[in-house]
């Protein structure tokens, strides 16, 4: 009953005209920056933060939160239409989403992403409202050994992100891990591969890698073959999913939501890892897994649901413990501090209007995003008809602005160009970039948690098997390797027998 009253209080706060307006403004801005490649929620929120000083703190947070989860929505649109992840969390949406667009199903793909995000957002918000306090302790349960094993599992799953050669996928993961190693080593303070350039002390920025390998690589790659895009832009079929599509997307959305909800709570995981995991899971358990990578709706529905569920539950440690799971969440905490609200478990009791108002506004925002996005599908799809000569320079420009805005460094634009060249080579070699990005994200987490776990256990490698959570992940990982290699072994035995 308490929950009911709280939710009523929340809706009362969120439904005022001005707060509805701020939620809408945030969602709209979020969608826009999500659609624009390179420009992410972090840069946008930090630019807008000073403007919110004069505002009521609840309205300010409602707007900033709208930008945050709105960008998770918008990021999928660019991924599907032009093969560029607008946000880091939509890197895997590219794989099947763009294939769907090539088959004339861009509208269905965008609509699926919007519906999946809405369902996940609703569940995520409900979990946040009902279980925020008890779930917060989940963040404490995960230690270094557990994160290490989670990353092992993730990297093994990453192989499944490639629809081509397994060897190439493993190679790309390893390259990604190596790129992730650049910078000052956390444990020793030693600089690795920085060549004395201070800009590399903290390693490469995710945006630089994503923009370089995906956006620049894609633009350059499409220039040298004139496989006319008209082949698939002309046959933009139905915009909305049909009954069969709904039947197929539903289980994927539910699985994605569950994965995203859990991973969102963990401060060491986050949106992109949630969508990576969801894709791997779909590839293992979906009835249509044989079609994954060739334009399967599951490959869009699952990851998009996962990243949006994670976007909502990431507020759990932030709001209840004052522990931000990501740079963007740290910014939200900073916004609260600026407004003289001390983040922490007492926010729920000291500022109930803010806490519940924010939660209610998140659900309203998700609803707005669906209403905003579904009618826009037709307009987005028309973007495909813009000629290369206009679209590509525009994409390059927005990418450069986005890369520059993240750190105000022209050096980052040169870096992105260098990664663009690498991205082009990868295309020519038919190496898919998604596993590389995953290696880049998870590699450093794998290493720091591995070493931290060993420091804490005083060098005892058994710590990875002694911790129950860690052990569970390792067993699942071993199982995945076994099931993947069994057919290979059997095949080889058959070959040997045939030779006899």
């Amino acid at each position, binding site marked *: 009953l308490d929950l009911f009253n709280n939710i009523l209080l929340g809706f009362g706060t969120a439904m005022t005209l001005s707060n509805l307006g701020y939620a809408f403004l945030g969602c709209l801005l979020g969608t826009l920056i999500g659609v624009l490649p390179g420009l992410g929620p*972090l840069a946008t*929120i*930090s630019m807008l*933060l*000073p403007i919110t*000083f004069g505002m009521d703190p609840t309205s300010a947070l409602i707007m900033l939160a709208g930008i945050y989860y709105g960008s998770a929505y918008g990021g999928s649109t660019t991924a599907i239409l032009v093969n560029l992840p607008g946000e880091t969390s939509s890197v895997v949406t590219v794989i099947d989403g763009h294939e769907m667009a090539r088959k004339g199903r861009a509208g269905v793909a965008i609509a699926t992403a919007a519906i999946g995000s809405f369902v996940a957002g609703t569940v995520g918000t409900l979990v946040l409202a009902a279980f925020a306090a008890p779930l917060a302790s989940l*963040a*404490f*349960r*995960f*230690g*270094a050994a557990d994160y290490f094993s989670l990353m092992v599992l993730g990297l093994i799953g990453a192989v499944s992100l490639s629809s081509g050669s397994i060897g190439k996928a493993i190679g790309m993961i390893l390259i990604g891990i190596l790129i992730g190693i650049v910078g*000052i080593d*956390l*444990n*020793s*303070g030693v600089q690795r591969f920085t060549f*004395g350039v*201070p*800009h590399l*002390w*903290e390693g490469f920025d995710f945006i630089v890698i994503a923009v370089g390998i995906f956006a620049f690589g894609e633009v350059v790659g499409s220039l040298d073959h004139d496989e006319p895009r008209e082949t698939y832009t002309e046959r933009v079929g139905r915009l909305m999913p049909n009954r069969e599509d709904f039947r197929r997307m539903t289980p994927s959305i539910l699985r994605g939501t569950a994965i995203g909800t859990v991973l969102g709570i963990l*401060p*060491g995981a986050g949106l992109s890892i949630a969508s990576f995991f969801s894709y791997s899971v779909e590839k293992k358990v979906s009835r249509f897994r044989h079609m994954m990578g060739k334009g399967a709706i599951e490959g869009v529905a699952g990851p998009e649901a996962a990243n949006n569920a994670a976007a909502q539950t990431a507020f759990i440690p932030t709001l209840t*413990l*004052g*522990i*931000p799971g990501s*740079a963007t969440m*740290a*910014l*939200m*905490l*900073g*916004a609260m*501090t*600026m407004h*003289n609200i*001390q*983040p*922490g*478990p*007492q926010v729920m009791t000291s500022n109930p209007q803010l806490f519940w108002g924010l939660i209610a506004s998140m659900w309203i925002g998700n609803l707005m995003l669906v209403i905003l996005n579904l009618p826009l599908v037709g307009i987005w799809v028309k973007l495909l008809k813009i000629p290369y000569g206009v679209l590509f320079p525009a994409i390059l420009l927005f990418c450069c602005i986005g890369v520059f805005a993240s*750190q*105000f*460094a022209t050096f980052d634009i040169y870096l992105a160009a260098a990664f663009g060249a690498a991205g082009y080579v990868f295309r020519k070699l038919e190496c898919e970039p998604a596993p590389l990005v995953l290696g880049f994200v998870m590699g450093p987490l794998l290493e*720091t948690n591995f070493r*931290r776990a060993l*420091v*804490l256990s*005083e060098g005892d490698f058994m710590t990875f098997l002694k911790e129950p959570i860690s052990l569970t992940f390792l067993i699942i990982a071993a199982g995945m390797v076994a099931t993947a290699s069994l057919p290979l072994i059997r095949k080889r035995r058959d070959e040997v027998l045939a030779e006899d």
Partner: protein
Amino acid sequence: MNFILKGAVALGLLAAPAIVTAQEYPTSQVTVVVPFAPGGSVDVMGRYVSDRLSRLWGQAVVVENRTGAGSAIGSAHVSQARPDGYTLLVVSSSFTTNAATQPSLPFDPVQDLKPVAVIALGDRFVSTGPRLNIGSLEDLVREAKSQKIFYGTNGVGSLAHMTGELMNDVLGIEMEAVHYKGGSEVMVDLGGGRIDVAFSGYSDLASGIGKPISVLSDERSSVLPDVPTVAESGFAEVVVPNWWGVFAPAGVPDDVLAKLHADVVQVMSTPEAVEFLATQAAIPSAMTTVEFTGYVADEITRWRGLAEKAGMIE
């Protein structure tokens, strides 16, 4: 004729900033560089002081987060800016630990930047996790002699790392450092009982994670008056408060420095500012520019000595 006149006026305008006097400063937008990501304590302090200075001056004061390389990118940027008071830097005590431990900084932390004014002094606390059920620094010394104690840091050479090594040195114990990417990661593992000790500002304690057993200041904190100071336990040498301060490129004219110092002190000591600082367990400081400059130099020397002794730098 008219053309020449216009030219002369334009030249005069171009030359104007060179003869700016303190009464006129600032006549245009001032940029405040925060060399850290938005949302952190330096950013919060930097934005607060910028906003209040902007109101006082009637000029835009724009905060730029120039992150990267710890805080070296933003600091180097300001060190190369024109020394006219229109580009300023806000940093915290980590400026001195970085200066002491980071090799090959792209600027000279003593020669290239001029400490101007302290925005605030903040309390820092020693807190312990649930695995250690202790209530004082004396208990910590006793426990550390009978079992392995881990403390969390925000990275090699960070203020927390320095504090931990300083405590090891002064208290004669051997706690082991575990490095994390940021203060919130430290608090998660403190709450989970994987590490035992954290050194942090008040904002990290507000969540209720960690039990503060001692305050690393000369006096007790107004927010947690029951927590004794390190000096009360007999370890006055481990006083390591946090500070946030405004720096300018070396060579800023004295009149601009004086006005900047006076204005920062003024906006940070209003009742409203004092109330804001109290929520961060911080207080304003009237330290003069000369005192602040000496303090920064002393801190760099202190940390450099400790880093050498603890084997953090060669």
